[in-house]
């Protein structure tokens, strides 16, 4: 089964927080400015639980972990009936001081003990209704009981990790990403071109769906940008088999046959001396190979989710699409897509052109207390999709 190895990435979850990390022996990561070593994750299984002990995440049994993080469901015996006796004058409720808590923490006192101290030193706890006692305890648990769970990365978990950092991925919500992948009809063997500014999240999804098929995956990026604008691909720890057919090429040079010509002529004559220049040369050669290959390939799918102007990208790339191929463009605003739509209508040779957005609502399901969550995302962005046909 899947276990973690040195160098692997893992997704750590703790309550409702999600963090992507890389496991490296003897090298710490930082969570809330605290140094944490992940050495003990090595050889552990997907979904294992870990407790923070003296700067190390240490494996703990599933049952023990579950007991610790179990949310409270208190019987109402020791509880007040309603809020009539509860007054919050802001000061005297809690007599355990912040400094004292920090002191306890540094002495290695367990989270449970801190919570029971907080309860016993709370002037109002007894008077709260059962429901608010429960709420209070769950809130404290979130703060003081730090049980982590380590997962093998998946596209779902990457989406989860970015939910609090949506600006980094152009606010692409998971349901919109899911829809985008369906509409682009990516599958084993597809030739795909991707122009994205979403940290490589879309590229990673495509690589996974193509699963090392015979098709080519072209990641078109502006040349000026740093090489590694696709951290998500690193997070997924893809095998070589999956990435041999992935080419990152400078989008500006697409369609410019002279570039390749010129580049080939400008080949340096002297042999490279050190490792670094050798690698740089290899990367350069790979880009050129990719460009050359791109000119010869008929694409089955084109995906655009870029911070650059979508219309000009579409105009430049549309002729590379094969008959009955698919295109999908994501944009946070509908205006950009309307421009693309007008261009497509004028050009012809495309059908089933749609603009759509989606709505995702999460629910709390509890006995007698079922309702939608109070907060939801109100912006999913829009997708323009369609197919290329003979005109």
């Amino acid at each position, binding site marked *: *089964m*899947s276990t973690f190895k040195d160098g692997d990435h893992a997704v750590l979850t703790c309550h409702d927080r999600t963090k992507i990390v890389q496991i490296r022996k003897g090298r710490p990561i930082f969570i809330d400015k605290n140094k944490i070593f992940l050495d003990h994750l090595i050889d552990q*299984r*997907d*979904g294992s639980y870990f407790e923070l002990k003296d700067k190390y995440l240490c494996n703990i049994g*599933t049952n023990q972990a*579950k007991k610790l993080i179990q949310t409270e469901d208190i019987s109402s015996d020791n509880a007040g009936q309603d809020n009539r006796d509860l007054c919050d004058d802001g000061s005297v409720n809690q007599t355990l001081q912040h400094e004292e808590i920090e002191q306890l923490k540094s002495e290695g006192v367990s989270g449970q003990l801190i919570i029971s101290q907080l309860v016993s030193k709370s002037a109002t706890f007894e008077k709260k209704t059962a429901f608010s006692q429960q709420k209070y305890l769950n809130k404290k648990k979130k703060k003081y009981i730090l049980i982590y769970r380590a997962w093998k990365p*998946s*596209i*779902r978990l990457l*989406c989860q990790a970015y939910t609090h950092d949506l600006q980094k991925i152009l606010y692409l919500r*998971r*349901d919109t*990403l*899911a*829809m985008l*992948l*369906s*509409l682009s*009809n990516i*599958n*084993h*063997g597809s030739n795909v071109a991707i122009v994205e500014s979403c940290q490589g999240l879309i590229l990673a999804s495509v690589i*996974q*769906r193509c*699963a090392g*098929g015979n098709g080519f995956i072209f990641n078109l990026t502006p040349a000026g940008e740093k090489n590694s604008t696709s951290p998500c691909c690193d997070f997924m720890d893809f095998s070589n088999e999956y990435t041999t057919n992935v080419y990152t090429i400078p989008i500006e040079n697409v369609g410019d046959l002279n570039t390749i010509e010129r580049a080939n002529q400008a080949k340096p004559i002297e042999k490279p001396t050190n490792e670094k220049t050798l690698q740089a040369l290899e990367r350069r050669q790979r880009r050129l190979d990719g460009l050359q290959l791109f000119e010869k390939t008929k694409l089955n799918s084109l995906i655009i989710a870029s911070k650059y102007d979508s219309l000009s990208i579409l105009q430049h790339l549309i002729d590379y699409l*094969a*008959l*009955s*191929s698919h295109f999908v463009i994501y944009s946070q605003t*509908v205006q950009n*897509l*309307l421009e693309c*739509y*007008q261009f497509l209508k004028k050009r012809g040779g495309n*059908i*089933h052109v*749609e*603009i*759509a*957005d*989606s*709505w*995702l*609502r*999460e*629910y709390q*399901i509890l*006995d007698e207390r*079922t309702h939608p969550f109070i907060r939801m995302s109100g912006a999913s962005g*829009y997708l323009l999709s369609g*197919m*290329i*046909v*003979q*005109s």
Partner: protein
Amino acid sequence: MTNLIQEGSKVILYLGYNNLHVIKAKANEVYQTKFGALKHNDLIGKEFGSKIICTKGYVHALSVIPELWTLALPHRTQILYMADISLILLELDIKPGSIVIEAGTGSGSLSHSIIRSLRPNGHLYTFEFHELRSNLARNEFEEHGLSQFVTVQHRDVLSNGFEHENIADAVFLDLPAPWNAIEHVMKVLKKTGGRLCTFSPCIEQVQRTCQRLHMNNFEEINTVECLRRIHEFRYQHRSKIRFTADQNQEEIIDRKSNKREPDDDDGDEEEETTTNKKLKNDSEATTKRQPQETESTLTAIGPLVMPGHTGYLTFAYIKQE
């Protein structure tokens, strides 16, 4: 898979938006469309995506891909649509190599998308207790060249379970009482961890499912609802009100500048005045052109009426060792 239409190929004819027909290419046959007769012989040998001329128009010939199939398939049951389907695939982590269990097969709408995402080395086991539906689905997978990725079984999963044990990465249930299948689900899911999704139209069903999931130590339980809005394209024409106040203002300006003009005989300022005059003439021209005062912009508008509910999706995870 070849990209050419052959004798026996399933073809989706695209007649227009939301107007799709499914046919099987057979030499010498003729199919009647609203654009007149379509000769099957005109299809055979053509590339998918080609324009096919009929007697009174044309259609496009497309291959069976999951999105189009979901729109064109013969309905034998209620089916799932792309918004739910896509989210299910993502949340169940279905990827090449996945082993997936589905019940019931229904019309096979979801199955086609699952198969696309688990190819080339995964497998779908799909169960249906209605024998005819089960057979029809099997035939369709065969016709679509998908047989090697799917096993269709005629079976009541509530009474008889999923036959296998400890093999599945993910289970999907779309049947009236999914909570009664939970024990079977636990058996078929990989002990090292697996995911479950249930689809139910009613909140009471969700409530019972969640209760049962908690009782059986499922984790990461969450319920969502997802709707997709397809927008309509429309040119919006907006006429402008001509405010008399604005007109008066313009007239006053006009009069003022007209008055000043004769005084302007100072040579030094000549150049400046001519440019001014030009500007003024330009602005006059625009005010005179104004009577047509409507603006047209292309807009996208949400549908006036749309499906407001499909069902609730409940996801959960369980690790049993």
